[in-house]
């Protein structure tokens, strides 16, 4: 019987290990969510922007100038008017600039919107710092109301030399129905 017993025992041990492996991999699937984020943040790929306000630094501006373009996109059937006040700016690295986007709720209902930014080329993302941004908060507008939404940013001096133009794009999402938190709270 000892052979049968030891067989059962080693079977049990192996099964426990394999089940633990399965559970661990299920957990790993969820762990991939922050892992990809961390990976993108470290390597600066995917154009993910830091969504926490940068501390304002009155550093010395360099003489290098680059062009920054502003784009506004409405997600799906988002019915608001949405556009940048400046379509592009020439900026000096290290200096803080202010611009704004304009939004108008064209519907007859109260709505809440959330803007999600992205930067192209993606390797520029980590050098674009936002001191203040309307994307940090959700934007509620009453029916017919319009608003200028402020944006303050600076481009860090470390920006790779081959980048002459950056595009900053905002996509406006309708989150009226969602009870969730704003993107800033999530992060």
């Amino acid at each position: 019987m000892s052979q049968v017993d030891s067989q059962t025992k080693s079977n049990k041990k192996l099964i426990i290990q394999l089940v633990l492996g399965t559970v661990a991999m299920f957990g790993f699937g969820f762990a991939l969510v922050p892992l990809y984020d961390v990976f993108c943040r470290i390597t600066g790929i995917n154009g993910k922007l830091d969504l926490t306000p940068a501390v304002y630094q009155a550093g010395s501006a360099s003489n290098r100038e680059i062009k920054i373009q502003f784009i506004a996109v409405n997600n799906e059937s988002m019915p608001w008017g949405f556009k940048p006040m400046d379509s592009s700016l020439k900026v000096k690295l290290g200096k803080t600039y202010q611009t704004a986007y304009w939004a108008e709720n064209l519907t007859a209902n109260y709505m809440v919107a959330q803007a999600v930014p992205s930067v192209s080329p993606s390797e520029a993302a980590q050098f674009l710092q936002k001191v203040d941004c309307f994307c940090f908060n959700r934007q509620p507008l009453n029916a017919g109301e319009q608003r200028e939404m402020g944006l303050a940013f600076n481009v860090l001096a470390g920006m790779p030399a081959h980048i002459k133009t950056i595009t900053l794009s905002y996509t406006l999402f309708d989150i009226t129905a969602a009870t969730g938190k704003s993107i800033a709270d999530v992060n």
Partner: protein
Amino acid sequence: MSTSTEQLVSSESKTHDTHHGPAKGISRWFYTTNHKDIGSMYLWFSLIMFITGGSMALMIRAELFQPGLQFIEPDFFNQMTTMHGLIMVFGAVMPAFVGLANWMIPMMIGAPDMALPRLNNWSFWILPFAFSMMLMTFFMQGGAPNFGWTFYAPLSTTFAPPSVTFFIFAVHMMGISSIMGAINVIVTILNMRAPGMVMMKLPLFVWTWLITAFLLILVMPVLAGVVTMMLMDIHFGTSFFNAAGGGDPVLFQHVFWFFGHPEVYIMILPAFGVVSEIIPTFARKKLFGYSSMVYATSSIAFLSFIVWAHHMFTVGMPLMGELFFMFATMLIAVPTGVKVFNWVATMFRGSMTFETPMLFAIAFVVLFSIGGFSGLMLAIAPADFQYHDTYFVVAHFHYVLVPGSIFSIMAGVYYWLPKWTGNYYDEKMGKLHFWLSFIGINITFFPMHFVGLAGMPRRVPDYALQFADFNAVSSVGAFIFGISQLLFIYNVVSCIRKSNQASDKVWEGSHGLEWTIPSPAPYHTFTQPPKVD
């Protein structure tokens, strides 16, 4: 000490034999813990799913026979492409290999049964329920899932039909079934081998299945995770894939393909194993490069974890990412090339005969290589921007899945059928089935390369007039292939029914433990472990 244990084991197994034949009637199939019964049920289930998914493919091809909309609405067309993919992947190919594993692994390693027979019963019986749930969605409001078998978010979350929840639970159930099956295979192979059956003597089918089982355990839970995230996004207000809430739709693709790429190897590694069993038998030579086969399979399995993003070259990855995934993908061609070389070298100067299993196995080697080469083309990141989401991709993965996985399953069935049933199948009909299938699939899938390169997108019910001729040809081929499978079914059924007694060895050049037992294989085999030297 060894003699006393042997006596104990043998006396126990004898009493076990006498009071434990197959139960009578239908309850045999519900309660069975016998690996042969369960293997048969897996194979029948897979055949039913193959016909179901195949009928969907024929509906797709009927609609695409001519440009314009003839038979089905675009939304139903999308349901067809989605369900065809899901059913063929999870319902036909994977259960067929589990069925072959159930039948053959214990017989190949000299074990009396699978290590965990009750778990085995359960992992099979989950499947009919999972697929009933999946197929039920056709009758629900909004119809069946229509977002493609890869179910990219937000198409499968924000814009999905309400039946998506049933789809998610069906995926959970079949995932649980696969994981339990994989655990069973690993425990059986690692703990139940006959004395003397050391790891490097294992038949290659057993080796490839062992590696496949580890892949299953590593990635099926990730699939369960990704559908759970979908479920939470749809019903519980989370934002894993919803950009408005801080999520990222691209995240879905990363997590999905982390599962998805190893998944395609789950569907092909056991096929490598089957072919590596068949070719030596009919070439009457030992397999060339046994240990290199084992190492090549392991390397393919390892590499499958670091290439997933080649499915998403066009999502806007940074250059470094594209380069890494391009080169990592091309690296897979090396171990795969080793395998193809070994098969060809096994045949080289062998005394070959061309029985049906061998025909399917040789077609596998040739056509799988074609699919492998189009895979290399797709791996070239800059070129992929042209191929992405076109029929070229459809041609590629059907070349590796149909004449790859499906042909190897058919080869395996013809090869082991005389051992299972005790009868030879009709060789002439088998050959006819092979040639019709071979011609049929090439007519179906080869023109897809051309329409794909010319720019015809996947998953469309209608197309530009310039693609009309090639699509008509493809559709004709699909019906040839589809209808010729009736020959296969007829041949299998008549092989079970009619008596044409097979010898124990079955094939002149057969090798391995499974050919040392009588044909048909008795209900219980190797109750006393055989001696392996």
